């Protein structure tokens, strides 16, 4: 049992912690509303109520000073969607939500379902494969490259670029060091992108057209494109892989999904709550303030451990139990408030299409080897998940 007081020197980003984070999240949650993490010079909270109220109050807890843990990354993020408050935030978000809001995604549904059906038809005949590289990654990469309208020559780079970029949000540990040159390669490419590089009608080209039309600054175009590139892959891949992993562990849950595929969206809510593909976000206090009796100084950073908040037993009964009847509509896996994931509708749609394709063909999933955790400074998921599917 890990014991944490109101301050702690635990490294939230050590390999051991990233492998198995929940023990420390529980200890942090139980010891105080917010705990000072000396290794990160920031507060951290694993309580549902704290996370929700901090994320709702963007005026007191701002994103504009950056949402990463290093000054270097935060300098690079200046003026981007992730690292801005309203009104700039709303202007940038509007460009993405014009394509990512549920009503805008209707026109993409048939395409995504077809991609899922084709891939699952192919994998069903194989039977044994890696649920990450052969399925989750391949599916989300195919969908996202097409929707953004990226040139062929960069599609093969997308997975490593996305992984590298999100690793930079954490401290400058080994993962971040290794990621620097890879992310650099993406930034160099982004700076050189012109409208005609991107497929007409795609989400990427829309950004450059919005810049031409004066809806956003020219300088905001490349960072917005990077929001698509960096945020759309590892997150969704993690969600899909975690879901399949849970179905290998809970075959009865999968059996029930197959009996009533209308439950897929609500089962996915529980997957997101229980497994939290994105583990944390952070904000900076703009004024001296108070969180449940703990004084937070102006300029201090607060890390909201979404994964810990999603397991808070004061909000979810038997919070450490995976329960597909729970329907946790208020989970925080996509964060909450003005910065609530802009791509959550697409992530849900991709996942719903994929499991809709799997349900009629797959009676059960079984592990066919030892799964390997993917270590990331932001997300939690599988690097490799060898499975065998038993045909229906």
């Amino acid at each position, binding site marked *: 049992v890990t014991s944490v007081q109101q301050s702690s020197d635990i490294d939230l980003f050590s390999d051991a912690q990233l492998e198995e984070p929940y023990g420390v999240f529980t200890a942090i949650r139980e010891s105080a509303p917010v705990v000072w993490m000396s290794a990160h010079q920031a507060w951290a909270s694993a309580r549902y109520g704290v996370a929700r109220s901090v994320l*709702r109050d963007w005026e007191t807890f701002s994103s504009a000073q950056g949402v990463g843990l290093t000054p270097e990354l935060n300098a690079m993020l200046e003026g981007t969607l992730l690292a801005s408050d309203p009104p700039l935030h*709303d202007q940038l978000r509007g460009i993405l*939500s014009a394509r*990512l*809001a*549920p*009503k805008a995604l*209707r026109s993409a549904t048939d395409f995504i379902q077809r991609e899922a059906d084709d891939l699952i038809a192919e994998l069903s005949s194989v039977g044994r494969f890696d649920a990450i590289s052969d399925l989750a990654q391949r599916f989300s990469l195919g969908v996202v490259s097409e929707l953004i309208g990226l040139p062929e020559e960069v599609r093969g780079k997308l997975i490593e670029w996305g992984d590298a970029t999100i690793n930079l949000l954490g401290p400058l540990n080994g993962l971040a060091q290794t990621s620097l040159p890879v992310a650099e390669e993406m930034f160099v490419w982004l700076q050189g992108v012109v409208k005609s590089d991107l497929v007409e009608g795609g989400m990427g080209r829309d950004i450059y057209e919005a810049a031409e039309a004066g809806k956003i600054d020219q300088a905001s175009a490349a960072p917005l494109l990077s929001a698509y590139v960096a945020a759309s892959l590892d997150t969704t891949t993690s969600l899909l892989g975690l879901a399949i992993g849970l179905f290998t562990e809970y075959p009865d849950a999968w059996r029930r999904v197959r009996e009533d595929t209308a439950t897929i969206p609500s089962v996915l809510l529980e997957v997101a709550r229980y497994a939290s593909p994105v583990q944390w976000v952070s904000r900076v206090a703009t004024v001296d303030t108070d969180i449940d009796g703990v004084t937070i100084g102006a300029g201090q950073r607060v890390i909201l451990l979404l994964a810990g908040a999603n397991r808070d037993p004061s909000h979810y009964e038997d919070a450490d139990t995976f329960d597909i009847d729970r329907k946790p*509509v*208020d989970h925080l896996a*996509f964060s*909450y*408030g*003005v910065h*609530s*994931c802009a791509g*959550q*509708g697409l992530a849900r749609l991709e996942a719903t299409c994929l499991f809709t394709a799997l349900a009629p063909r797959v009676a059960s999933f079984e592990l066919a080897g030892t799964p390997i955790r993917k270590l990331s400074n932001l997300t939690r998921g599988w690097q490799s998940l060898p499975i065998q599917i038993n045909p229906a």
Partner: protein
Amino acid sequence: MRLSLDATRCEGFGYCENEASDLLHLDEAGDLVMDVEMLDEQQSVRAQAAARVCPVGALKVVQD
């Protein structure tokens, strides 16, 4: 009491509709439409639930 919508934030996720389909709905275009102006006591409970599940916090129950 009434339910106030910040239309610039609403992206039409529609979770609110599951909580209070008598108070608001997504129209055919996918835009949220408020169906009730003033809330009575019972409606305000469902309105709170609808506000609670909005991912972007676009809904609020306000006292006039």
